[in-house]
């Protein structure tokens, strides 16, 4: 039982990181029907921004490591940088192809992804870097047997992701911008007829999704402090599967899918073997595609009257 609780805690923690990344896939897909392959690399850039920024501000003596201010400044910086990167990717890679065949856009997405990965290897170096020690990990709770431990990182990861998801939900469902995003994702021509500046709405979608991925990068950085330019590949795939599992295009679905992915992975590793850690994502993907291609919450082919 204790073991179960421990896997559960780890699974939720991992799943909430997947959620931050899965949201970006699902938002962009919802609005452009595009699988933004570069998204996982934006997450990687987020982690590296955190690496450089965290080291930089501590070297300048603006903050001392580890500290809350170091963590939050670094988080904010990575989110800003990646928000801007997401904006640029949409503006200069995808927008010119908006009316091009789907395949051209897909190939471009893969191209951007490879570009970021290999540029990353040149600029950052291919060898893993140790993420700066932004926060101290303290054990908050330990059961008598020592089999259940809750560390402060688990709580930080959960709190940051839940807060971001709550803020996102507020934006999407309560603000004019969010309503315009939902309208645009339903039908962009009709949205334009309302006076909604569709291009700007699409930009915002990329900015928000990318900023969330960056937050994921920082959280992974503090928890698993080895980062490298290809770190986005596997986690990106898992987040993508999470989005598909929840029903791609559906925000709540992405979060639920991500939690399921995180839990499934931890349980497989805990009770089975860590050999299957990554294979699991493919397994789940195959099962969804076979039995429920629309995903758990997805409405396949949203009715467009």
């Amino acid at each position, binding site marked *: 039982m204790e073991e179960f609780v421990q896997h559960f805690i780890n699974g939720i923690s991992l799943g909430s990181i997947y959620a931050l990344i899965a949201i970006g896939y699902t938002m962009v897909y919802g609005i452009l029907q595009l699988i933004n392959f570069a998204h996982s690399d934006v997450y990687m850039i987020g982690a590296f921004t955190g690496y450089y920024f965290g080291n930089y501000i501590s070297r300048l003596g603006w903050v001392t490591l580890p500290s809350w201010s170091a963590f939050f400044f670094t988080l904010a910086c990575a989110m800003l940088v990646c928000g801007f990167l997401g904006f640029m990717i949409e503006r200069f890679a995808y927008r010119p192809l908006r009316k091009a065949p789907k395949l051209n856009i897909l190939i471009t997405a893969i191209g951007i992804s490879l570009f970021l990965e290999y540029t990353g290897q040149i600029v950052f170096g291919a060898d893993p870097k140790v993420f700066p020690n932004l926060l101290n990990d303290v054990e908050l709770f330990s059961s008598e047997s020592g089999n259940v431990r809750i560390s402060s990182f688990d709580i930080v990861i959960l709190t940051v992701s839940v807060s971001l998801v709550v803020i996102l939900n507020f934006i999407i469902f309560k603000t004019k911008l969010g309503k315009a995003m939902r*309208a645009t994702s339903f039908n962009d*021509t009709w949205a*334009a*007829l*309302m006076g*909604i500046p569709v291009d700007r709405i699409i930009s915002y979608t990329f900015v928000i999704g990318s900023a969330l991925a960056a937050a994921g990068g920082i959280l992974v950085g503090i928890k698993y402090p080895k980062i490298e330019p290809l770190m986005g590949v596997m986690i990106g795939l898992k987040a993508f599967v999470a989005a598909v599992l929840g029903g791609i295009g559906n925000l709540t679905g992405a979060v639920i899918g991500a939690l399921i992915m995180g839990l499934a992975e931890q349980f497989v590793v805990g009770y089975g073997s860590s050999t299957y850690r990554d294979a699991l994502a493919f397994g789940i993907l195959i099962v969804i595609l076979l039995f429920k291609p629309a995903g758990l919450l997805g409405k396949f082919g949203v009715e467009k009257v």
Partner: protein
Amino acid sequence: MTTSILSLKNISVNYGNIKALRNISIDVNKGEIISLIGSNGAGKTTTLRTISGILKPVSGEVVFDQQNITGIKPHLLVSRGVSHSPEGRGIFANLTVMENLEMGAYTQNNKAYFEEDLEKVFKLFPRVKERIKQVAGTLSGGEQQMVAMSRALMSRPKVLLLDEPSLGLAPQVVDTIFHIVQEVNKSGMTVLLVEQNAFQALKISHRGYVIETGEIVLSGPAKDLMTNPKVKEAYLGG
């Protein structure tokens, strides 16, 4: 005295090799209801989509309020005073009725005007008020059309473009819709009404245009068109 508020001058539009509109000219005067009638595939929707900038004409001009708006970005037209309610109603089925109306008022930044307009459309369509919190996709076709019209009014347009508002609706609902078109027109709104339902459209219109395979074949006062033998035969069931 009549002043033209919207005119299409020698507009031609192609879809690839298909010539959808050939050199059509339409004039809409302030305060009029103009109906554009024609059968399936005649080019009615194409005409409206060209006015609102979704399609770019290969030649010709669209002039609105003395300004050339040919090829303008669709979203910029709304704040200038054109509201286009698209074919098939264009309801955002994933949004609530209220949110649909808010999207109609996207360019309206004045909160007081918004509230005022909301009251106005509630008066025109009490049903919309009843359904305000409901997800729009769950509404009946007639209710959705009411929402579509309400939404189109929320931007305080000078000209309302309606693409087949009677499509697929029960006769009673059609009567209501046409009645409301007349009502808003009486309060000063100019309307360009696209319809296959020629008889009812002409009945409430000042003037009309008949379009066939991308060409305007007839135009004139609605009364004259209704008694024109050709129109009667082709569109009014003999």
